[in-house]
């Protein structure tokens, strides 16, 4: 309880300090009004945040915002598809995929604390009605979690770089090993990611493939 209260106060204070700092970076034209509106909404959200934890039981603010922006991303892409001719379809899908990948990576690294090595997404491209729905996700993680103390973390990171270089060379080999690799991780970690992703992006759990690169 005390810890939560402390975190709440720190967040409010730091957001307000940060905003006063950003305010004089703003260009002085009529964008300022719009920005002020958004900043106001944001402060309201920050203040109401503890309530949200009570009401919705666990889902965080970041989740909500990401989910809404994800939905908007899909809709934007569908609208673009309707207006732009077929020749440009590929560009639009690629843009969408890149955005989605970036978002998922961010989610895995920041909120769940894993190190992502590679991420592939398959999306529905034929069926016009469900266009943009995610059909499958393949995630390749690096082995350890990101929760050590800072000096140790740095040391580990250097090791990781070496590992990923090795893998780049044998990329095709890695794909063949996918089945085997995912069987390495039967413990709860894979399940956490699958649960999280399947509820967040509405993907079937069977269609999420997770494998771990062994760090040796």
């Amino acid at each position, binding site marked *: 309880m005390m810890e939560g209260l402390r*975190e709440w106060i*720190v*967040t409010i204070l*730091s*957001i307000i300090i*940060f*905003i006063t700092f*950003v305010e004089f*970076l*703003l*260009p002085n*034209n*009529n*964008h*300022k009004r*719009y*920005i002020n*509106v*958004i*900043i106001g*909404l*944001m402060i*309201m*959200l*920050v203040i*109401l945040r503890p*309530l*949200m934890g009570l*009401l*919705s039981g666990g889902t*965080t*603010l*970041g989740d*909500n*915002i*990401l989910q*809404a*922006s994800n939905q*908007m991303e899909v809709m934007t892409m569908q609208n673009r598809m309707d207006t732009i001719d077929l020749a440009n379809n590929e560009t639009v899908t690629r843009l969408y995929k890149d955005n989605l990948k970036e978002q998922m990576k*961010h989610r895995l690294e*920041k909120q769940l604390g894993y190190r992502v090595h590679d991420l592939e997404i398959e999306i529905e491209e034929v069926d016009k009605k469900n266009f943009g729905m995610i059909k499958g996700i393949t995630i390749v993680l690096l082995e350890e979690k990101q929760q050590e103390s800072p000096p140790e973390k740095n040391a580990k990171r250097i090791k990781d770089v070496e590992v990923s270089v090795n893998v780049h060379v044998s990329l095709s080999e890695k794909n063949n090993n996918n089945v085997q690799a995912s069987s390495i991780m039967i413990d709860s970690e894979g399940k956490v990611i699958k649960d999280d992703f399947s509820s967040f992006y509405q993907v079937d759990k069977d269609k999420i493939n997770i494998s771990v690169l062994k760090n040796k």
Partner: protein
Amino acid sequence: MEIYQIVAVGVVATVLAVTVKNQNQEIGMFVSIVTGFVIFIFIVAKLQSVIEILHQMANKINIDDIYLSTILKIVGIAYIAEFGAQICKDAGEGVIASKIEFGGKVLIMVMAVPILVSLMDLIINMVP
């Protein structure tokens, strides 16, 4: 001191642009566009380091990344739109400039929609 360099670039470019403008108006415009870019690139490295430090700080005190990144994105959009609109205005194309500003406004509003949605969600949940 970097401010000397920036002012020097600006003053030299202004003198150049004014001199050239009498003979050839287009080249004067090019000079001002290029100067804008040069100063922008000059200052961007500094800004980058500041933003990096802010991110580190946010990580340390463990606040949600979403606040910081949203605000910074909005400020970035406002700046870039302003930059483009100024160039267009300088070249005498007020109509295009106002379209750029319009685009900037819409994109800022798009950033705001997810926040609005979650706020509405919260308020609706709050009322029994």
